[in-house]
């Protein structure tokens, strides 16, 4: 990254500063507002479709809201934001989700 050396070119009214300050200080709920959190993952969830009963428990328990599921459908896991916490695998009543070390 290129370092930028800022000199004291103070905008005397400060309006522009306040606008930028507010933009950077405040955050609104949004998909990926904290970056691609999927890169934090150590273990990734593997879903075995043949075992899945489509109960939706994994969808209900996922703390990061990365599992999408509609009734009588197979759930889908968004691997861009899944942090690999393993809760889905833990709550799955039929062991259809297995946590596997990344890269294996």
């Amino acid at each position, binding site marked *: 990254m290129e370092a930028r050396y800022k000199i004291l070119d103070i905008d005397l009214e400060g309006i522009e500063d*306040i606008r930028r300050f507010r933009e950077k*200080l*405040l*955050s609104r709920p949004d998909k990926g507002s904290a970056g691609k959190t999927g890169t934090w993952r150590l273990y990734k969830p593997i879903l075995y479709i043949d075992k899945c009963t489509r109960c939706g428990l994994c969808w209900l328990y996922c703390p990061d809201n990365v599992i999408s599921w509609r009734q009588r459908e197979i759930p889908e896991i968004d691997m861009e934001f899944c942090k690999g916490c393993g809760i889905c695998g833990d709550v799955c009543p039929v062991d259809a989700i297995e946590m596997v070390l990344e890269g294996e």
Partner: protein
Amino acid sequence: MRLRWSWRGSDMDRRVLIGNIAISEAVKLARVDVISAYPITPQTIIVEKLAEMVDSGELNAKYIRVDSEHSALAAVYGASSGGSRVFTATSSHGLLYMYEMLWWVSNSRLPVVMAVVTRSIGPPWNIHTDHQDALTVRDSGWIIGFAENVEEAFDMTLQAYKISEDKRVLLPSIVALDGFILSHTAEPIDIPSQEDIDRWLPPREPLPFVMKPGEGFAVGNLGPDEVTMELRWYIWRAMERAKRVINEVDYEYKDITGRSYGGLTERYRVEDADYIVMGMGSWCGDIKEAIDMLRDEGYRVGLLRIRYIRPLPIQDIIKYGSRSKAVLVIDRAVSMGYGGVLAGEVASILRGRTPVKGVVAGLGGVDMRSEDFIDIIKRFIEEYELDLDINWLNTYWIMKDGGRG
């Protein structure tokens, strides 16, 4: 005693008030919306008086009772995020207990105003003044001013709202006044009318942001490291602009009250001075007296009273410091392992220009009189004239006997 008079058509109400009551009168005139505080000597009277005002309906504000100073500042932080004009006050250990919240307030740039009635930090337990508590928060991004007398503490509080809420600044302010010496000592003070203050200090604008029900956002969420540095950069710029705003506000305040102090610093007999004394707070009154007496004896000395230590009046310190032969800084706080807090700042600015000597005195409220200052200043001048090779920052402790045997 009450006396009404008029300054250029403005109505003034002359009353004899102690510093704490004067502050609460200023807060009332500023029409604050929310007050939250926890009692601590010697500050308590400020918020006691405000509680009475809220109770009697004299002041239309919400008074939040809390379990600690940390909660008090957290409460006003929340209220200020909601767009209210807020006030809190504390001293010594209470300020230290607030320390974490101080940074939340300043890093969110909320225009909170707080009175800090300075008091020594224990142990040993001591309720008397020194500036150690207020200077502990020096680097937090709050504007910090020190009052010399009761009237100035009143003025500084009113001005603090105007300065903090200015959109060029938007930073919180601390008004520091010496415990007991100002907080519990009655002095005559001219209070401007509510109408004049209303005209001069309009209601707070919804800046830098206002939280409203139904509008979801988070303040200061986790983000990339560069965001932290960028936000600090805006605070730095705001602090630089504050120097100008403080001078402006102090000047325009004269229109209502006829009172003006000189902005970031007050210059007392410095124009032709060979030696400059620098200091902060109530004892500057005694230093002025000492300077008058020394002038009568033929010593050419002057006082540069630092009214605001943050933002630091670097320009004034250079201007008056570098045209003098040597500078003496009298501190009521010490940075262990270095020297007086203000002395350290002044020495770093005047490095290579003027020798600086620091004196640490009056810690824990040890009484310093004008005769003491005469001795200190005379000794400083003699030492300088005898030996030109003064180190950049010499620190001396002024010790007095007394107390436990």
